[in-house]
């Protein structure tokens, strides 16, 4: 399956690899890097490969990778067409599958259905109270309190903002125009809305404000549960309301597996799978095909190859952050891209 171009071990001479980018991927990248480094450290000796990681945000990760400041940029969003045309050598290599939950803090509401049309109205200030008829209409039988909605969005540049606005635009293009799909946007003015920094800021902000609604990366699931936040059932492309679970995220991604192009640039939002969750994405490594020297390029290839194989282990790596492994055909596509990294 894997050609000889793809090394499974780092170069003999000690090299160091740098990674910056997505804060969502940062904890996982850290454990991958630590374990990989250990593999190639002779007992009592110095590591053959040193990997430093940094959680700087996806935008910085992409820029750093394109300017050559770092070897690997981590991003929740694939490269935009403008980024690709500026730096044609950049690739986005899928490393894992992530999802996004819609969290809420409404006392007494155990189950909440939401769709993009309703979320658009909430985030544009057309719906301001949880007992609004439009919310009741998709939640028959639920007793919704008379409580003001506090909308939370990210203050910093975020792949999560990109995913959330992509979902709103995919289901409700009239209410949420494509111009408002990005990693940061000018949010419509909504009274009492709050901007938070980072996923942890969203969790804390939502826990502190009754009536809150927030979009939070799936890797923070354990923290949102600990904070007592509800996890909404989100309407998918075939009209079903589902929570993000390992099964629904896998099913959602499966519908896109055969459609994933060789470049792995694909939006998996609002998919057609009946049992598939609607807001899912590939987590990417952004790497330039041209690295500064051969041994370093070999190390990057070996490290990324290890991530899409050994690094997919659920119990050690993916389960703690509620990510899902890549389907085997996507692993092959990632390997094909990894093989292109040279010097």
């Amino acid at each position, binding site marked *: 399956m894997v050609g000889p171009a793809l090394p499974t071990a780092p170069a003999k001479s000690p090299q160091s690899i740098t990674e910056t980018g997505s804060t969502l991927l940062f904890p996982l990248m850290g454990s991958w890097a630590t374990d990989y480094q250990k593999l190639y450290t002779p007992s009592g000796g110095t590591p053959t490969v040193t990997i430093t990681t940094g959680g*700087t945000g996806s935008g910085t990760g992409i820029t750093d990778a394109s300017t050559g400041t770092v070897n690997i940029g981590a991003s929740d969003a694939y490269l935009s*067409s*403008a980024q690709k045309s500026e730096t044609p050598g950049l690739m986005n290599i899928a490393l894992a599958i992530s999802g996004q939950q819609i969290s809420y803090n409404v006392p007494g509401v155990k189950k909440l259905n939401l769709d993009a049309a309703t979320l658009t109205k909430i985030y544009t200030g057309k719906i301001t109270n949880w007992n609004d008829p439009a919310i009741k209409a998709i939640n028959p039988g639920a007793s919704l309190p008379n409580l003001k909605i506090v909308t939370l969005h990210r203050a*910093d540049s975020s792949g999560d903002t*990109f995913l959330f606005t992509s979902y709103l635009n995919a289901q409700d293009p009239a209410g949420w125009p494509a111009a408002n799909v*990005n990693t940061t946007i000018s949010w419509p003015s909504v009274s009492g809305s*709050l*901007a938070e920094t980072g996923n942890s800021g969203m969790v804390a902000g939502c826990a502190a404000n009754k009536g809150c609604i927030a979009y939070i990366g799936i890797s923070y699931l354990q923290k949102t549960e600990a904070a007592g936040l509800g996890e909404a059932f989100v309407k998918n492309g075939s009209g079903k309301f589902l929570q993000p679970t390992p099964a629904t995220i896998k099913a959602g991604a499966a519908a896109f597996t055969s459609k994933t192009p060789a470049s792995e640039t694909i939006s998996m939002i609002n998919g057609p799978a009946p049992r598939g969750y609607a807001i899912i994405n590939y987590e990417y490594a952004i790497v330039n095909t041209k690295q500064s020297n051969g041994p370093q390029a070999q190390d990057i290839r070996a490290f990324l190859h290890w991530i899409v194989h050994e690094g997919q282990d659920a119990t050690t790596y993916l389960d703690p952050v509620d990510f899902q492994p890549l389907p085997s055909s996507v692993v092959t596509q990632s390997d094909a891209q990894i093989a292109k990294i040279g010097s």
Partner: protein
Amino acid sequence: MAASASELRPEGEAGHGPPPRRLGISFGGDRAVRWVGFVFALLPAGGLLAVLAVLAVEAIPAIKLNGWGFFTHSVWNQGGGYNAVIVKTGGVAHLAGSQFGILAEIVGTLLTSAIALLIAVPVSVGAALVIVERLPRRLASLVGAFLELLAGVPSVVIGLWGVLTFGPFIAHDIAPWIARNFPDIPVLSYFTGSTGNGQGLLVSSLVLAVMVIPIVAATSRDLIRQVPILPREGAQALGMSDFETARRVTLPWVGSGIVGAVVLGLGRALGETIAVAMTCGFALGEIPGNLYGAMTTIAATIVNELDSAFGDASKFSVRSLAELALVLMVITLATNVVARLLVRRVSGTALPVGRGL
């Protein structure tokens, strides 16, 4: 050679007797020392000019394309969506559909600083008067020491306190009371309405006030100390009350110096970044509708938008941020120059201007 050295340093001893050898180290003669000193002396000025120049070069395309519209509207949009293509307008590359306006940032910056000063100035000048004229010497130096300690607290610490403790306290216990008791008439209605959730204009301004108070108070205290005792005693002998003495004798004596101290505090407030970024609610492009609304300032926008701007392949977002930074730099440099001029007019001695900055 020696003669020119003494001309350069009139108060030095180079021209008298044997050259001083206090350091006991030879740098290879006077000439080398002078050149090294010359270079070191010019470094700060060179640094400032370099920053300005680099910023200006980075910002020029943005200045050209954004034009005056940069200052007249509040839409900050990198481009028409994630997959917008790069287009060129007037030779400047940017993402199709991009729009950059900083009216809200300018209003937010001026508004937070103005409210902060409105609160900080009376408190600071009052504190300075009391420290110099009323408190026993030991207590005065203790209070003064605390003021200087407050000036030294890193702004990120104050920001964290603002987010975790102070903001919620204002939002739950203070703001609702103010909002209830102000009449719904023009101007004053700005104090009414939704009291938000602890991040916004009022909390940011109060956090700034906490940071401005030590600067204004410490500088005012040092200024008031210089007012001779005789005129003050004279005023008291004429039957003036303490308040009248302060208003008619002490404060006029150092009046423009205190204005300088206030402008110095203003400079701090205008440029303060992290504490405001943490407490302003970061509503990009939004001018707060009332005293409690979420908003943003120039500095907060730069720090919050940088990562996103890096994602813009045309680099035009970064250039627009550079233009924003240039605007902030011009504003703060201007206030700083004014402050220094005003403080210097009062006294020829080297005042501890900028202590705590």
